[in-house]
């Protein structure tokens, strides 16, 4: 049996969790889904569509607000005879599974993208911020892992199921509630959400020159109806806020077009923008990695090139 911890959002099972269930089905064993806390309407049907044979539900006072240790207690209670226990490679997924691995006394593999062999179990997982893969052997009786976002596309199962929902009894000692969310505040409406979903991202790096060097870049962003993304140099110099950062420790983006201006293309930045369908680099250095890896490039000073592009866009619009 394979146990999948499902995270939910307004739409039911979160997309990353649907990807994880799709991944789990590929292993060919019975899949059981675990839901913690309040369910959302339509969730059980959706889990059935994704092939869950059963749905376990842990509910009660311990789960009204998030506490990773309490969630881990639920996973361990649900694990039973499971050979693999998995969650999506989100902040929560990685946190809860690390707790689970401690409780079961086993190793954990974070951000797995593929199972290479089952006897012994060898998985491939993302390391170096997603720029390389590690083949890792998991030799324990139960394998604990998280599945990297976009490791596979979320696909409903052929001929879904109508899973039964079984309430799960979980004993949660007070020590598991020492670290618990006591309050939450809604996010700023536009923080990084628009960056991750934008069709066009205009990127800016050290080449912008200063906090005042973004006027033309922001105008281009607006003319293209896109979002601004920046390199870590830009955020660590305080030129722009961190939620605009693209890369290993920022957002992963996959727009139709990424216009990378004055960005060298360090591997940690590339990790965040490599899924863009088309990349146009604007850089003074024809040998910069961003230029050689891009589909298109303009060699030149962004402070000359970008205003000229803006003017041409305005001119053609009349």
């Amino acid at each position, binding site marked *: 049996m394979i146990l999948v911890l499902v995270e939910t959002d307004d739409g039911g099972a979160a997309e990353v969790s649907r990807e994880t269930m799709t991944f789990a089905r590929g292993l060919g064993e019975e899949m059981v889904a675990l839901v913690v806390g309040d369910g959302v309407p339509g969730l059980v049907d959706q889990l059935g569509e994704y092939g869950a044979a059963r749905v376990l539900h842990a509910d009660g006072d311990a789960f009204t607000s998030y506490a990773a240790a309490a969630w881990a207690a639920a996973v361990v209670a649900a694990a039973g005879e499971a050979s693999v226990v998995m969650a999506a490679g989100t902040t929560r997924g990685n946190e809860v599974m*690390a707790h689970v691995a401690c409780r079961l006394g086993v190793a954990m593999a974070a951000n797995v993208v593929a199972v290479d062999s089952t006897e012994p179990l060898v998985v491939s997982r993302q390391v170096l911020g997603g720029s390389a893969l590690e083949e890792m052997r998991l030799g324990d009786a139960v394998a604990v892992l998280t599945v990297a976002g976009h490791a596979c596309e979320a696909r409903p199962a052929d001929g879904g199921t109508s899973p039964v929902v079984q309430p799960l009894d979980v004993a949660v000692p007070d020590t598991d509630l020492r670290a618990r969310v006591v309050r939450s505040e809604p996010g700023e409406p536009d923080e990084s959400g628009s960056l991750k979903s934008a069709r066009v991202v205009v990127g800016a790096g050290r080449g912008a020159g200063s906090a005042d060097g973004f006027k033309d870049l922001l105008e281009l962003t607006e003319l293209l109806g896109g979002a601004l993304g920046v390199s870590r140099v830009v955020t660590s110099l305080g030129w722009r806020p961190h939620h605009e950062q693209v890369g290993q420790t920022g957002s992963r983006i996959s727009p139709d077009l990424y216009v990378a201006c004055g960005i060298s293309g360090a*591997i940690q930045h590339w990790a965040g923008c490599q899924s863009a369908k088309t990349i146009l680099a604007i850089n003074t250095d024809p040998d910069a990695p961003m230029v050689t890896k891009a589909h298109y490039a*303009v060699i030149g000073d962004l402070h000359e090139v970008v205003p000229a592009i803006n003017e041409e866009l305005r001119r053609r619009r009349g």
Partner: protein
Amino acid sequence: MADVLVCIKRVPDLGGEIRLTNDAMSVDDSSLGHTVSPHEECAVELAIQVAKDTDGRATVLTVGSSEAVEQLRNALALGCTGAVLVEADASAYGPADVATVIADVVRSQEQAGTTYDLVLLGSDASDTGDFQVGVRLSYLLDRPVVAGVSTLSVEGERVTARGSGPDGGTEIYDVPLPAVLTVMEGGIEPRYPSIPGRMKAKKVSIDEVTPAHQPAGTGRVRLKLPPAQPSEVTVLGEGADAAAAVVDLFEKLGVAR
């Protein structure tokens, strides 16, 4: 007065391209500089801020080779006042091994009279990305742990920590000390070292520890890189003259509106 321990890992600063060693077991870092993860830079900054705010101390620790003294000195230059080098081959240590030797240091310090009220780590090491050492450490020390916090403040016997939740909002924790927290970049801007800071850092003596622990290992079989792509870049032009070709491209891609 809070005593803070912050854990950092020396990793290669990769630049534009990764090369592996011949056995594909590690990154060939022979021609690379070294650094620590941005998450850990933020953890160091938070450790120093808590020490300042509470009149306490910030101690930096790494498990690694003697070369990792470079990263310890950098943290000292920023304002940490003590440093511990657990001398070991970090590549042979899995996250459970690292947690074990950090826990040993915390316990032996406790016996010597210093309790680290707060242990700060990065959410994930930038090379191995295991997302585990902090949580594993909390189990070994029987302390509460929160993963992925971006700001924090210590008030008496408790720490308030904030991190971003799955829906993009902020989640707030209020946790009793002693506690373990793992830090994610984004809440604060790490300071830069000053010249007097660098001078002072040179004089701090580094506490060297030889671990008694036999590492269980990482399970690594090998590393793999995506196949190298030959450059297929089309240069649209140079300078402002390229604007028309760029807008043609936008129109072709259907993004010019």
